């Protein structure tokens, strides 16, 4: 008698498996190659390729640095199975707080430390709302977002210049630029990628983030206190938002009330494109950075080719949806089975 169970199942090779799980590597290469190609003079580029240049690559790296830091914070939150809608206003809030302090002559280092603490505090608040009261993260962080919006508008009704005349302003923008590929965001993103990767892989706390998001119940049963880990993840998210807020503030020496608008959504899309799972339990910093890079390359190349923001938005949206569809059909799940 034939036994149904014993029929050979087609197994993917290790390489195929790896790329199915990390399709972002291929997407990134593809997008970068396409961008470099399309921007060349023969095709869409004008007289010369303005995308595929050294100086633009430096700019691109800096952008990936600034927005990558924000996205890394969100990656922690995603890994524990949460979501944080308030990160955009966290950025504006932290930048505003820093600007206020810097203007009133508070020592810059102290102001930076206080700002980072404020970011962590907001993140912790989010974590507390989600884990202690049990409000779904979508709603809890929406509420915090709304409240933060009010606070930001009060602290910073329009824009606050840190003042380039001040010592602080001068030093910071100088540090921000440094020279060549070496800008503050690039240095930070490299350091943080390494630190966070080690944290997620080699520390018990970081490693247990995956358990929290992957199987909360299992975490509970084995006593790792997933609620506490969620709070830590949200707090790290707040820390990263604060850092991003500081960087944005350094870049222009000003804090504006709307500086966080839209970058939250971009960060969410970027890490999803990178392959970080919104349902939790999967993702890492490399995926996050590559996802951010894909989105930034698309934006950058289209700017260089003088397409309007409309086209940029359109293409970004289409890329996000295509990646979702790709995941849907390579995940190998039964389409009929919900």
């Amino acid at each position, binding site marked *: 008698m034939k036994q149904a169970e014993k029929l050979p199942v087609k197994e993917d090779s290790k390489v195929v498996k790896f790329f199915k799980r990390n399709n972002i590597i291929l997407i990134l290469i593809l997008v970068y190659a396409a961008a470099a190609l399309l921007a060349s003079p023969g095709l869409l580029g004008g007289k010369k390729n303005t995308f595929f240049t050294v100086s633009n690559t430096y700019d691109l790296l800096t952008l990936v640095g600034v927005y990558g830091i924000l996205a890394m914070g969100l990656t922690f939150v995603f890994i524990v199975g949460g979501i944080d809608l308030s990160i955009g206003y966290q950025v504006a809030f932290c930048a505003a707080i820093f600007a206020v302090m810097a203007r009133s002559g508070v020592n810059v280092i102290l102001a930076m430390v206080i700002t980072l603490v404020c970011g962590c505090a907001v993140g912790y608040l989010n974590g507390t709302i989600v884990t202690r009261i049990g409000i779904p993260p979508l709603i809890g962080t929406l509420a915090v977002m709304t409240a933060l919006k009010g606070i930001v508008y009060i602290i910073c009704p329009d824009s606050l210049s840190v003042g380039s005349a001040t010592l602080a302003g001068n030093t910071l923008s100088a540090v921000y630029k440094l020279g060549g590929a070496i800008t503050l965001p690039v240095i930070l993103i490299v350091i943080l990628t390494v630190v966070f990767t080690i944290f997620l892989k080699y520390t018990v706390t970081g490693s247990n983030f995956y*358990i929290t998001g992957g199987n909360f119940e299992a975490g509970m049963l084995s006593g790792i206190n997933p609620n506490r880990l969620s709070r830590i993840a949200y707090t790290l998210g707040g820390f990263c938002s604060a850092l991003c807020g500081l960087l944005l503030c350094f870049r222009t020496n000003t804090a504006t009330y709307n500086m966080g608008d839209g970058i939250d959504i971009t960060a969410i899309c970027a890490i999803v494109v990178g392959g970080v799972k919104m349902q939790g339990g999967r993702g890492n910093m490399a995926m996050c950075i590559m996802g951010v890079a894909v989105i930034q390359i698309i934006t950058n190349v289209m700017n260089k080719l003088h397409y309007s923001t409309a086209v940029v938005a359109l293409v970004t949206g289409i890329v996000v949806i295509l990646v979702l569809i790709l995941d849907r059909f390579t995940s190998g799940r039964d389409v009929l089975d919900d």
Partner: protein
Amino acid sequence: MSRGDTFIEVKDIVKVFPGVRALDGVSFDIREGECHSLCGENGAGKSTLIKVLTGAHERTEGQYLIDGNEVHFKSTQEAIAMGVSCVYQELSIVPEQSVAKNLFIGNLPKKNGMIDYRKLYADTKDILTQLDMDIDPRMNAGELSIGQQQMIEIGRALTRKARLIIMDEPTSSLSEAETDKLFEICAKLKERNIAIVYISHKLDEVMHLSDRITVIRDGKNIVSMNKEDTTQEELIANMIGRSLENMYNKEKVEIGETVLEVIKLSRRNVFHDIDFTVHKGEVVGFFGLVGAGRSEIMRAVFGADPYDSGAVRITGEELKPHNPALSIEHGMAFATEDRKKEGLMLRLSIMMNMTISNLKRLSHFGVMDKKKQQDAAKEFVESLRVKTPSIAQLVGNLSGGNQQKVVLSKWLMTMPKVLIVDEPTRGIDVGSKAEIYGILNELAKSGVAIIVVSSEIEEVMGVSDKLITIYEGAKTAEFDVTPELTREEVLSCALGGAPKS
């Protein structure tokens, strides 16, 4: 601590939930290195007892002694620290994480504050060897089979230096081979002086594995005995407290023309070449071990799962393209095995649940006829004796038996020609069971063709006219149920043997 010494002793444990006395004075003991089985019907109090043992629940009264010292566990963590681990019915595997991390969850080896991967993988290899498993520690646990995941859970208990491993229905989703493997591991564990509390409704497994057996009924322990001193029949008698006879009250029904025809139905790697017919007024039983593919076949017959080849016909008409809506339209109804996942909308009212498959009949041009809808629901609540204050009651608040009646009501309301019931009495008390058999009898008398899928051999033989056995996705035999048909014959076919004649 040597083999045979008493490790855990519980005395007169009482657990009271608001309105329910789930445990009403249970006493028994577990010795080092023994396999002690707990038997009892669903709702007898086994799960509550386990939860008290593992620290998930605190007891209301009574004593819980480990090595002679009284303990008061506030969390599962504390129980684990004292050597009491549990392998849960619902697996607690983290699918996206490696086998190694799943084994050492909550217990990762550290060096200088960092995870010591070298030790982690070495220790994992060690545990895997103990479990006779040859897999890569770095592999994602989600890619393992259910049986392997179960082993990982047992391995998890080993990493915690467990002295007692509680296994709650461990074989319910294992294949035959995997079950044998589990038994081998259990024997090894016993050799290492680890005690096992084994909970299963499969009495042959219990008899095979146990040193001692305790039967629980209505929250009390009825009897504890050595395996050698008892028989399956005695266990059953103890579990149900009365003889099983006459529960089914099978009546002879005139069998009419063919209603459902299933022809050469196959799905790659799941089942193949399934042929059968069901006639008006006939009850066809499907028997096979869990994992044999019975439920999968029924899901495909109903159009809920895809199939690669074959056909399903109702009164001669082929269902194509096959989906549940079309099946229902042609008079098929399917009360699934997993009520909560596939049968009910727990957040919605009884009325909504009962009428969801009948929207067409209870509406005019898409607008619901509320009066008709309420009347229909009330009628079924009364005729099936669903215990509820109102049809507006949320289904999530009902007991298992009443929930099953809501599922049956939903399907009876569609006035089906063919009714498929998958494990109709799982998780239901004895009283409700008899009621449900009564309903099936009534339906057969009124000319409905019925398919009963069950893993309880008594049940399937008690209610059916015809019996089909399934083994590893294939039909192995078809019997007419006569008084001469023996359980042994059916069981041997369900285990892959060929029919005698």
